């Protein structure tokens, strides 16, 4: 999860209650924020695009602008140090994007602390329209949805500018899935002509424009969409989102000037500066509800950050219908007090729940029914079901205030039969002075086959996207793990006697998942005088505990010294069961595992013993 730095000044100036630092962190944690702690960050400004960047004490100053891609190694003057800033650092909770910025977070805190009950945001109507090109909703083009808003009377401070930029970036991550499902653009409205804007699909040769951070006066800085994807750092970064489509989505004003090429980059022409007062905001994406929610979160947080702004709706003209955005129509959800009481196990009534939900920013409609009619604020994206509001009740009540009780119903406890078997094995072997080890279930063909001089077979499970060459499959046997353990203990006293009880996996077509886990036990000894007879005694001692004896049948196996390897058969209640293999490890194998003392070992399956535990 990304970590966000919330400016303490910005946050606290929006809360009336005086909260000491420790209490603030505690309150935020009680609300579900993953607070890492307090820190001081250094703020820098990119003089080429006015982007504001922050670094923590342990980070190095940026080398490129994360917005316009300016290279500070080439042009060190473009990076301007602003100041040190006190922040509270938190991991983002992806489902609550309305708490990503100091404005939205302060709104949540004010409610939680009982300072205010939220009364909604005012929306104004306005003249602006966006006409959506039908080509964008066709399958081969891909970004059919758009929602827009006008924000007026903005007065940026360095703080709000930073907070808004960061919010935009974090919304791209949380709701936009890295701009794929939704991406946001913000523009200076006064630089845009007319009121009838276009959201259209454009082919490569139809358009050239100056992307953010490039020189408007230079003809050579005007790029075609393909050039953007190939040359502009942001184009290269997000190329994959547009590559497979024949045309490119573009947002243009009445005169055809480019606002942006979503979801890649804005145009330089309508770039937002600290002096911009009126803003045009768009969110484009692949899902109408999500695009609307993203816009709602963004504009309401901006309203919280910059006092005195007004929000104006834009009419979206789809080929077959028209809508006005932002759409703040609240989601209406009914909550039953008795249901909430039953789920949470605390005493509640309609009045208490009303208070708790109001503290969480919801509005409650008056009614005479037993249920509460809850109006969910437009910036909440996580209410899918009434149960989600029950959680809000629990949070407002405070997890720390819950009684710790147990379910009154009695049930009978029982461990798996496998575990009884494993326990028996462990008792036997530790009683002989052996040490239990655990080794990783993930292994490689090299360790499982090649190093043991065994041919690779085709009954093991192969990982499609391994994270390292040492972990490409699920193990088929335990022995390589034991040999690795010896290798890691080459400096330790000899002899060493170890064992492992665990699962190996094998393909199995009968199974629903195509594979099966088998329980195994392997033991090995390393030391100057280690031989076959020593390990055989251990194996016999183990099987004696199951009321059996062992029969050994000479065999051949490339992992072992010829003539010193045998199949183990157990004879239990006159039944003979094939259990596994035992022997002295082949010197080539020892060399492969970088071992310089002899090793003897046995490995058996435990499945057949399962019915021989008490």
């Amino acid at each position, binding site marked *: 999860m990304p970590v966000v730095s919330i400016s303490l000044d910005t946050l606290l100036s929006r809360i009336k209650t005086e909260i000491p630092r420790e209490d603030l962190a505690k309150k935020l944690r009680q609300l579900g924020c993953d607070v890492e702690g307090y820190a001081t960050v250094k703020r820098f400004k990119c003089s080429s695009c006015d982007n504001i960047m922050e670094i923590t004490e342990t980070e190095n100053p940026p080398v490129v602008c994360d917005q316009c891609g300016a290279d500070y190694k080439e042009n060190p003057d473009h990076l301007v140090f602003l100041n040190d800033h006190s922040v509270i650092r938190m991991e983002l909770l992806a489902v609550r994007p309305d708490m990503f910025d100091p404005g939205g977070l302060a709104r949540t805190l004010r409610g939680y602390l009982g300072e205010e009950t939220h009364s909604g945001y005012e929306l104004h109507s306005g003249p602006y329209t966006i006409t959506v090109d039908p080509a964008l909703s066709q399958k081969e083009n891909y970004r059919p949805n758009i929602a827009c808003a006008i924000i007026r009377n903005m007065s940026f401070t360095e703080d709000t500018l930073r907070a808004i930029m960061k919010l935009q970036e974090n919304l791209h991550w949380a709701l936009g899935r890295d701009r794929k499902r939704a991406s946001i653009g913000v523009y200076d409205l006064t630089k845009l002509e007319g009121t009838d804007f276009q959201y259209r699909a454009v082919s490569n040769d139809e358009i050239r424009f100056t992307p953010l951070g490039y020189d408007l006066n230079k003809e050579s800085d005007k790029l075609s969409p393909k050039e953007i994807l190939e040359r502009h750092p942001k184009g290269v970064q997000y190329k994959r989102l547009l590559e497979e489509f024949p045309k490119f989505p573009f947002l243009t004003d009445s005169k055809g000037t480019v606002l942006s090429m979503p979801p890649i980059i804005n145009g330089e022409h309508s770039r937002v500066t600290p002096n911009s007062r009126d803003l045009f905001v768009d969110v484009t994406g692949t899902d109408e509800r999500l695009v609307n929610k993203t816009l709602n979160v963004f504009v309401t947080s901006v309203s919280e950050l910059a006092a005195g702004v007004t929000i104006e709706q834009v009419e979206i003209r789809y080929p077959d219908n028209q809508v006005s955005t932002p759409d703040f129509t609240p989601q209406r959800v009914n909550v039953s007090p008795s249901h909430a009481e039953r*789920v949470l196990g605390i005493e509640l009534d309609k009045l208490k729940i009303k208070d708790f939900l109001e503290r969480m920013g919801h509005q409650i409609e008056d009614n005479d029914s037993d249920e509460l009619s809850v109006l969910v604020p437009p910036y909440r994206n996580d209410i899918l079901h009434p149960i989600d509001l029950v*959680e809000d009740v629990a949070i407002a009540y405070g997890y720390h205030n819950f009684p710790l009780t147990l379910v009154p119903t009695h049930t*009978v406890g029982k461990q798996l039969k496998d575990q009884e078997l494993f326990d028996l094995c462990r008792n036997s072997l530790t009683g002989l002075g052996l040490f239990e080890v655990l080794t990783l279930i993930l292994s490689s063909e090299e360790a499982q086959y090649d190093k043991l001089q065994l041919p690779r077979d085709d009954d093991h499970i192969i990982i499609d996207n391994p*994270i390292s060459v040492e972990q490409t499959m699920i193990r088929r046997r335990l022995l390589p793990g034991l040999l690795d353990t010896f290798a890691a203990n080459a400096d330790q006293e000899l002899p060493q006697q170890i064992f492992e009880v665990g699962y190996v996996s094998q393909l199995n077509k009968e199974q629903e998942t*195509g594979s099966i886990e088998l329980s195994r036990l392997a033991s090995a000894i390393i030391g100057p005088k280690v031989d076959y007879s020593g390990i055989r005694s251990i194996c016999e001692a183990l099987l004696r505990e199951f009321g059996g004896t062992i029969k050994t049948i000479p065999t051949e196996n490339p992992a072992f010294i010829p003539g010193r390897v045998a199949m183990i058969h157990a004879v239990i209640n006159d039944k003979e069961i094939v259990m596994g293999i035992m022997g002295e490890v082949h010197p080539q194998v020892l060399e492969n595992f970088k071992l310089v003392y002899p090793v003897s070992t046995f490995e058996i399956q435990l499945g057949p013993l399962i019915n021989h535990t008490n």
Partner: protein
Amino acid sequence: MGNKQLVPEMDFQVLTQLQKTEGLISIPDLAEKAKVDQSKASAVCLFRADLGEIEVQETSESEWKLGKKAKALPGKSLPERDIIEALNKMGGNAEIPQVAESTGLENKVIGQSLRWLEEKKWALKDGKTLKLLPDGQNALSNEYDDEKLIKYLIENGNATSADLEAKGINIKAACDLLNGRNFLEEKSRKTRMVCLTPKGRELVDQGLEVRQELNQLTTEMLRSGEWRNATFRPYDVTVPGDPVYSGKDHPLVSIFDQTRRVFVELGFEETESPFVESSFWDFDALFQPQDHPARDMQDTFYIERPNICRLPNDELVDNIGRVHENGGDTGSIGWRYLWNKEQAQKPVLRTHTTAASVRALASDPKPPRKVFCIGPVFRRETVDYKHLPVFHQVEGIIVDEKATFANLLGVLSVFYKKMGFDRFDFRPAFFPYTEPSVEIFVWSEKKKDWIEMGGAGIFRPEVTEPLGCTTPVLAWGLGLERLAMFRYELANITHLYRARINWLKETPLCR
């Protein structure tokens, strides 16, 4: 003349040797001269000291060894000496890379020596150049105490103050110069010096005679009764024994066992589920949308072989699909996308034991049930001190008409109390399949911070209802390696899986 005193053979040897010794002698020297074992000589001396016959003086003596950094020195001299010699050869001035080449010293070592060259006024760095100074010129024909000491140690391994005095090395001067450079390690060694007291000397002068003593009681002596005439030589019972270690369960396995015991005590039945799991049970049945980041190739291991899983009955599959698309009959609005059956068939390495819980629930949704599972889960994490691609969880569910969120917090607190924690914190959290959701933290006194241990919640109706379960289901998944790292104070998680034998031997069974 009185009667000769009867003493055990060992005492005879030691006392006779002491009789011949003028003044104090160390126990090792005494043992060597008396040709007896050192521990036995020590035992005799301590025993006789109690009788007032031998005087024991404990002295501590300094001993020097080469420190960490000295082991990296190429020659028998200090780096600054190598440097001035090189400078001298190159005419007094040279650039640092040239010096490095000529001396064979690493750049780092040269860098660290600059301070000493300057302090000793041997050479000075001017820009990139090192210049030999007059004092350095003089030093070429002299050898100083610090250098003598290092040279002595390189040749002899260690030195006591007596050794150094014998060589005429001024210890204080040498140490002052070497202090803080990690070239030297000083240890103080305790020595016991002994001599006869007047009482002891009187005894010895009277004459001693060896009394036959026995080491080992034998079966012959017991059978014949001869033991009645024997005396047994006393041992120094304070001498430590040779270490032996009991064979042991792996410490992490002890945690699994303890965890299992706690849940069985609480009335839970243990279950299991396959390591290779269908996306259906690992994600879809848990209402994780198919484009959820946790399902990315980035975070989850997908399987090349086998490449497909069978899905359960059509009705269940259909129910799950609808819940994703529009909430189905659960009263939810769902995730609102087109659910894809093929994607649900993709096998993964199970990312959480919650897959076991949801399977257990689907196989028998009737309350009351309490089920738990302990087992490995797989996440696509790069190995570092905190992360492994495999770790273990304990997962549990309570299916009960009367189960509440308060019960969930209650059972979690009982578990952590039984595992030895007394301070825990519950905080709101988010998981796609539970609501309300909670994260559990325990207090680390050592770190003075809360440590996250796992997540829990009540399964969402979108999870339970398609499985035919209409009762509340409390669920949790808690990391067990974290508990082990906490309990055994491990700094690195890989210690659990590539265990050092001495750690296994020495880790107490009891926490």
